């Protein structure tokens, strides 16, 4: 049996585009491990964009700021071992219902500690609407976040895409 190949922050093989007609940038192709390896910890680099919806690749290293969103988001760990801590805010919504995307909070919000989930490669967690959450890397890695383009999303397509 051939071994199943998963990439990682330290070991990935970026693919390629053979153009016959058109331009490579039409495919906005990048590699999430390469993107994360060159990003600051928890920089929310957009690697996929479908109108207002995005996939962000985050380099998980140390502890992240606290985040929240007015809608459900999802995290998928592609490398490393990462805890996600949750707080149920006690002083009303942290994010206005009309705001889309992830909002970085100023410090730890007040509220009830809900607990945490420990994720390893291939694990997915719900980041529920309204809850505050924070990543803490047990070992450094890469997290994908399925969300909406927001004020903390970072677009740097020219730096990450095959051209």
């Amino acid at each position, binding site marked *: 049996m051939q071994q199943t190949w998963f990439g990682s922050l330290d070991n990935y093989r970026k*693919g390629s*585009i053979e153009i*016959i007609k058109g331009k490579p940038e039409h495919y*906005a192709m990048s590699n999430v491990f390469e993107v994360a390896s060159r990003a600051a910890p928890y920089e929310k680099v957009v690697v996929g964009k479908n109108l207002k919806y995005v996939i962000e690749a985050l380099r998980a290293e140390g502890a992240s700021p606290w985040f929240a969103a007015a809608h459900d988001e999802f995290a998928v760990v592609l490398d490393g071992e990462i805890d996600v801590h949750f707080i149920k805010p006690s002083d009303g919504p942290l994010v206005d219902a009309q705001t889309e995307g992830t909002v970085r909070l100023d410090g730890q919000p007040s509220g009830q500690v809900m*607990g945490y989930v*420990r*994720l390893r490669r*291939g*694990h997915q967690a719900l980041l529920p609407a309204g809850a505050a959450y924070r990543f803490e890397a047990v070992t450094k890695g890469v997290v994908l976040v399925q969300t909406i383009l927001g004020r903390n999303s970072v677009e740097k397509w020219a730096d990450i895409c095959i*051209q």
Partner: protein
Amino acid sequence: MDNKVTGLQNVTASEPDPVTGYRIFRLGDFEFSRDAYFATIKWPAKGQDRSHQMHADDFLRAMMRDVAWGFFYGWVNFDEVIGTRNHYGKVDMYAGAYNANFKEAGVDHMQQFDTPIIMATFKAILKDWVNEGFDPFAAPEETGSAFGTKHGDNIAAIERTRIATKCMPGIEGDSPLRDDLPVNRQFADVAQDEPEIHAEPGFEGVLHAFSLFKYLSRSDVTWNPSVTSVCQQSLFCPTTEEFVLPVFHGNDRVEWFLQLSDQIIWDVADKDSGEPRARITMNAGDIAAMPADIRHKGYSQKRSMLLVWENATPDLPKRYESGELSPYPIQI
């Protein structure tokens, strides 16, 4: 031909052929027949009957996906000649309409049907033409032959039901996990551990996590996306792929692929003419857009995990077709 033979409303079929055992089906102007090796599709054009043949296994794999996906987003090209286009309530069946040479020669044909009618016909064809031992969802190494005269059927394989996911599999009231399915032979080395959930008192059952890779390693089908997370109209639809995508999927919106494991190579062509545009090699961790003006077909030499990411916003096909939206997702 009449619909009494199949017992299905709006399905027109012949009696079984005395030699091959297969029925002939008619859908509007199109006729579908098969023999031991080939499926043959006929249609009228320029005062003549035109015909096109496919290997029976290729045809059945393509038709199976079209049915399972509910005609999917946009175009499902069975090959370079025949296929369907989804108008979400109605479906075009075409021959040569998206092939530059057929179109130029005027020998193409297209006809639109209400979705329930074409769906019933396609299901009846699958029911009649899929033999015992052949599973059109399976990789070639995992299934028997599609060829030969009619022998039995495989209703269980072609009537797998897809369970809709509202938020994420495993949440109470949502779609189930796949713990009762075996790990696929080519994912025997995929870790089967689950996330650790440490909920504080009062929050038991509130925190949700599961192993997506374990879930995918237990998929019993290939090239059949299913939803695993829903962020408004943003749908993560991962799938496991082996051998070749049985159709050339034409996009009516931008679609994204994120290769979760191993490698898939994609042939990309012009959506309307079929002229080649690019060949993309995607390794684990690679993410790429499939623009709204292309068709694509993938090749996976080992079973791999692919995250298909869809935007299910209802009005997108019109907005792309009118030129309101660029077929390319970003500008550099």
